[in-house]
């Protein structure tokens, strides 16, 4: 593993984009996330790892307030974006979600054409002046999501007619077309073959120059390859958070070590 090299190029410690303090999440009476403190730096890739059901997706949804749409879900604690509390009453969650984009664990393209799927965000936010500019945004987003070559001849075909991996890349293209400042990706490569995975990882690396990216993954190698910071969750708690290289080579907590070496999970 090329972790030593990762440690080197990790972070000319950039400023904090998202700060979470004492975050608790309850689904009804189920205490799903316990007292999580994380700082997500700007222009870095942060990976969330941990066994299934440990609350990675739940925490991800806190960061763009998608938990608001779940009945019975309660979030406590403080989460800031650029120093501003995103759960403050003055914050419009709709505006927030335009700044913090998300790619879901399961691909969910709209039952529209491929073009319309990608153009959805730019259209509702008025990002394009005129059709030519919209075309340009769509093409650029599809290219960055490594999908352009496969779909350029059938942009009017329905997005739901693509294969599972293609749908996932379409969702990635859709998310980046809205030009968010932070991109949350929930297992974006779980349905992709190694080639598309490599392309997505390349994309993530490239996105880092402009946004901060948070990625949930079950692949240790992927976390090590693409991220600069890694957070390990276990049973709803944040066990360890630090430089990726340090987490993978020298974990402080025995649970982290067991997970990484494959003993729990």
């Amino acid at each position, binding site marked *: 593993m090329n972790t030593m090299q990762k440690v080197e190029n990790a972070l000319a410690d950039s400023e904090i984009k998202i700060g979470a303090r004492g975050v608790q999440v309850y689904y009804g009476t189920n205490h799903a996330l316990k007292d999580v403190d994380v700082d997500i730096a700007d222009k870095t890739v942060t990976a969330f790892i941990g066994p299934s059901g440990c609350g990675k997706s739940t925490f991800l949804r806190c960061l*763009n307030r*998608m938990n608001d*749409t779940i*009945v019975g879900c309660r979030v406590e604690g403080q989460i800031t974006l650029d120093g501003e509390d995103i759960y403050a009453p003055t914050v419009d969650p*709709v*505006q*927030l*979600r*335009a*700044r913090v*984009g*998300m790619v*879901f664990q*399961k691909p*969910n*393209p*709209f*039952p*529209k054409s491929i073009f319309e799927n990608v153009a*959805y*965000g730019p259209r*509702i*936010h008025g990002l394009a002046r005129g059709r030519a500019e919209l075309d340009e945004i769509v093409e650029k987003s599809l290219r960055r999501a490594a999908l352009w070559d496969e779909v350029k001849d059938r942009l009017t075909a*329905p997005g*739901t007619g693509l294969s599972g991996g293609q749908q996932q890349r379409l*969702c990635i293209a*859709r*998310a980046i077309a*809205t030009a968010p400042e932070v991109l949350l990706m929930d297992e974006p490569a779980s349905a992709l073959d190694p080639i598309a995975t490599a392309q997505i990882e390349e994309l993530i690396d490239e996105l880092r120059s402009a946004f901060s990216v948070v990625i949930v993954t079950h692949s240790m190698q992927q976390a090590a390859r693409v991220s600069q910071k890694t957070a390990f969750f276990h049973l709803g708690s944040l066990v360890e958070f630090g430089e990726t290289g340090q987490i993978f080579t020298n974990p402080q907590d025995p649970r982290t070590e067991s997970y990484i070496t494959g003993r729990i999970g």
Partner: protein
Amino acid sequence: MSVGIITLIVLAIAVGGFFIGRARAMSLVGGDARKLHSLPGYYGQLVLIFAAVPAFAALILWLLVQPMVIEARIGALIAPESIAEGSTRDLVMSDVRRIANGIDQLVAQQVLSEADLRTLSTEQSDLRSRMADVGVALGSDVVQNVFEAAKEYRRISIFARMAMAAVVLLLAVTGAVFAFRRILPDFRARNVSEASFKVLLIAASFVAVLTTVGIVLSLAFETVHFFRLYPAKDFFFSLTWNPQFRGGSDLGIAPLLWGTLYVSFVALVVSVPVGLFAAIFLAEYASKPVRSAAKPAIEVLAGIPTIVYGLFALVTVGPVLRDYFAAPLGIGSSSSSVMTAGLVMGIMLIPFVSSLSDDVINAVPQSLRDGSYALGATRSETVRRVILPAALPGIVGAILLATSRAIGETMIVVMGAGAAARLSLDPFEAMTTITVKIVSQLTGDTEFGSPETLVAFALGLTLFVITLALNVVALVVVRRYREQYE
């Protein structure tokens, strides 16, 4: 043996066969069901199917064919001179049936023995009064030839009955025995059961299709009859509707068609937006408690009989519209109007639109909403750009259902819009619809064979064609604009 008893016996054979078949299968493998190809119940089913299906099929076929055969044979026996002036062969045939029935009664009450019957002639006895005694009323004295025909009718009927019982029961027993003998451990009884289930399903859909065909054919038959008496050109293109009792009527469909479309249009203008918005509110915005209270409350509207809506139109909406709206503005003085009927019908249709639309909107996967929200869309943007397009086929279906109801509605129109056929653009005038006129033409006291009555069938067929065309158009539209989700 009556049909009921035959049915019961066949059922008993079939059910008995089920248990025997099951037991037989089990005993063949010494009680170890795993050695059978199928579960033991399937072997029972095999016997049941073979006993019941051919027997019942034969029974039904027999019941259909027997009257035809007998009528043909007896009809030939009736001499032309027995058919009185102004009567027809059909009327004499029904006399024959009634006399045969009367003889049955006389024999049953032991007023008459079979031996007497053979020698009995119409000259010697007053059959008519004796029949009247047992409750069979005849229009005239019985002619010898007709009496003979009746006796023959009765003889054949009794024979046919017995033959039928014998054939059906024989078939049931043969079927059961045949199936029973085929039971072997590796016989694929499960597959037979599967195939028969499929046949059952096909038969069910066949019944539905046949009914439609039957309805259309009977309508078409009478319609052709009508067009022989009344020119089709006048029916479709004449602009007046003015039926007369003594002939010389104007039977133009135009004013009725216009009334139908106008009232339905007003009803849809009311019900589609209200229903759709209510559905969107319920599905997307309402909290759980609000939803669980409001949804049934709206659906109560669907349970109100249309006659009650009619009363509402007649005593409330009509006068209110006239007194507070039409009259002050000087645009109408009638309480029966297209507006009244349309408004009330629109209210009636709200639950049809809202309830179905609510269901299809709820069926749109949550992941699509999440996808839209995560891109920074508001609720209404999500509704307009993602949910409604995805739910479109269902919503069009709901609107179509409402339209068909509107076109077919009669009571509200009679009480709200009146019964006067008129071609007018003014929504505050009384008008009427096709369905209303179908009722009034069929319930009038004109003769059935007259164009004034038969026009009802032509109207009905036209209505049918219109709704059919509407469905086809909607199907095409939906197919073109459908956004399909997984």
